[in-house]
């Protein structure tokens, strides 16, 4: 089959590889219909994730049809149209049973990397380096899905492929950002980053009762989408001082909830000296993540407010304003998405017309155009929000 393989920093190639096969009794094989790029893939492309290997197939957000199933798969059948949550849960460990499937104990075949770096192992993720298990990704014609009964969700009638594909990752990530922030009616929410996850976070915050949502980015088309599609008030951080603007918009209180939908890929978040300080340290290997957004959220958030972090961080950050965080009594919530907890709920919102992720898909390309698709996504040319490959 065809697959989009990582070969080195900013070097993607379309290759012919073997078809996947069932390796464990709870596996299924999915024939991929749609497979989306994701902002977190850019960490892989830029070489910030050291356990990538040449030849690794990337991609983790996908929809397709089950074409083969292992002997112990009980609830799924050939022909089912499914999405798969990008972060793999086993469905049986204590974390999975409690709905925290991205903390799964069992799904990572190579737990030693994250144990060494983090103290405990992370779950496996499709197409996201060997530290996250080394699972082959979805930018391919077929993909193998382990623990399929737990990780695959049948797409209900009335939900289109273009809507459903984002229930893999972008939608539950944004939804979880709003959910774990404990948004209450009347709350004012600020969302940093208007990519796919940020857009979903804005909409989700409204679904959970937010009074107003302010969206912060620098790209006019993304801010416009946040305003037109998700109903946010846009804030271009290159044109205004974010702190001053947020205080002015909140009667001097600051937002009740600040959502980080950017993470270490605060690309172009070059707020002068601070950016270059972090960029230099990152280049020297002294600091792996650039926390400009985090610092700003701590400063802007109202006293006693909540920071909800779903943008991806990988390692250490430097110069964190702990004093401000502590003395302002802030709450931090964070984590990779537990999509298995949210998939059904998201489908319900989509069916009722309360959420429509399909506008994230701005470019549909064939797998052959993989390298160009990522280049376009990375440089955000042609108003690109998400490129989705249809193999």
């Amino acid at each position, binding site marked *: 089959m065809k697959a989009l*393989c990582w*070969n080195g920093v900013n070097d993607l190639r379309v290759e012919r590889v073997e078809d996947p096969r069932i390796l464990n009794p709870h596996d299924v094989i999915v024939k991929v219909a749609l497979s989306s790029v994701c902002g977190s893939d850019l960490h892989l492309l830029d070489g910030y994730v*050291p356990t990538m290997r040449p*030849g*690794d197939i990337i991609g983790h957000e996908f929809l397709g049809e089950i074409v083969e199933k292992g002997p112990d798969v009980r609830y799924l059948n050939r022909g089912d149209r499914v999405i798969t949550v990008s972060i793999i849960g086993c*469905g*049986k460990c204590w974390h999975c049973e409690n709905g925290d499937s991205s903390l799964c104990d069992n799904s990572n075949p190579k737990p030693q990397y994250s144990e060494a770096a983090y103290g405990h192992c992370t779950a496996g993720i499709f197409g996201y380096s060997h530290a996250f298990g080394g699972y*082959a990704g979805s930018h391919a014609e077929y993909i193998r899905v382990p623990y399929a009964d737990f990780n695959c969700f049948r797409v209900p009638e009335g939900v289109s492929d273009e809507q459903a594909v984002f229930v893999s990752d972008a939608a539950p990530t944004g939804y979880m950002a709003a959910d774990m922030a404990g948004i209450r009616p009347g709350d004012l929410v600020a969302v940093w980053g208007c990519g796919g996850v940020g857009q979903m976070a804005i909409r989700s915050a409204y679904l959970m009762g937010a009074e107003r949502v302010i969206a912060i980015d620098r790209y006019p088309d993304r801010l416009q989408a946040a305003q037109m599609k998700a109903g946010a008030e846009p804030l271009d951080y290159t044109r205004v001082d974010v702190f001053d603007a947020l205080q002015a918009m909140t009667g001097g209180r600051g937002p009740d909830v600040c959502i980080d939908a950017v993470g270490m890929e605060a690309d172009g978040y070059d707020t002068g000296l601070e950016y270059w300080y972090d960029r230099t340290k990152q280049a020297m290997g002294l600091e792996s993540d650039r926390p400009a957004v985090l610092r700003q959220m701590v400063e802007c958030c109202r006293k006693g407010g909540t920071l909800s972090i779903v943008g991806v961080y990988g390692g250490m950050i430097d110069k964190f304003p702990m004093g401000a965080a502590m003395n302002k009594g802030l709450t931090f919530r964070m984590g990779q998405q537990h999509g298995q907890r949210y998939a059904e709920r998201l489908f319900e919102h989509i069916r009722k017309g309360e959420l429509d992720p399909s506008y994230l898909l701005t470019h549909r390309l064939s797998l052959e155009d993989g390298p160009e698709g990522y280049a376009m996504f990375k440089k955000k040319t042609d108003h690109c929000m998400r490129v989705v490959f249809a193999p």
Partner: protein
Amino acid sequence: MTSSQMVSRDGRDGGLPVGEAGAAERWAAILGGTALGLAGARRGSWAGAALMALGGGLFLAGAAGVPVARALREGLGEAHLPDGLRSGVAGLLPVAEEPTTTQAVVTIAAPPETIFRFWRNVANLPRLMSHLERVDVLSEKDSRWIARGPGGVELCWTSTLDKVEENALITWHTLEGAELPHRGSFMLAPAPGGRGTEVRLTLVYRPPAGAGGRAVSRLFGSAPEQQSREALRRLKRLIETGELPTIEGQPHGTRGTRGRMQEGME
């Protein structure tokens, strides 16, 4: 870890081996900058290389909190050791002063009965320890363990059970003639809050000093605590999910020299 550690269902290596300690360390260092890098290095060495240093600090301290570990350690006095080991393996190596205790612990979301039953059936153990070829039951108490060392060298020893407390404890020791005598205990205790069962595997052995790490590795397939840890991880995964996660046999593109080197390090 050694390459013998994470064998997929079909028996091929899918895991992270000796060089892995290094790879994980590097990963930690790259991700974490200096400070986490140091932490990673500490863990990394614990995970693989500096076997001798380890038996000491961290693990012994952990084990000291467990009465059975101390008892086991005392039980493995000089008198219990065969002549061959008293003067070092094959008489060539000096004997280390203190026996080494390693311990691994894991929480499994299952009742003690299920876990006890699995472990008590020694025929299951090769699924947990990749270097183990098979375990034959000789009698009510005795079993014969057959392992493959590096290069296919066959290693055999006989273990006898000391204590068996239903759903709580199994202890054993190797009989005279084992290349590296050791004692072990497998303890189960309910975890709080319905989290299942806490499983503790303790091994006490007397590593020959100096180049002894090699002898230990020959017997266990890698650093013993790494083996214990990996055995418990597999036990957890098999009991909780009925399978071991693997990517062995999945498709990938051209690995190239660099990719093959990275693969080789696992």
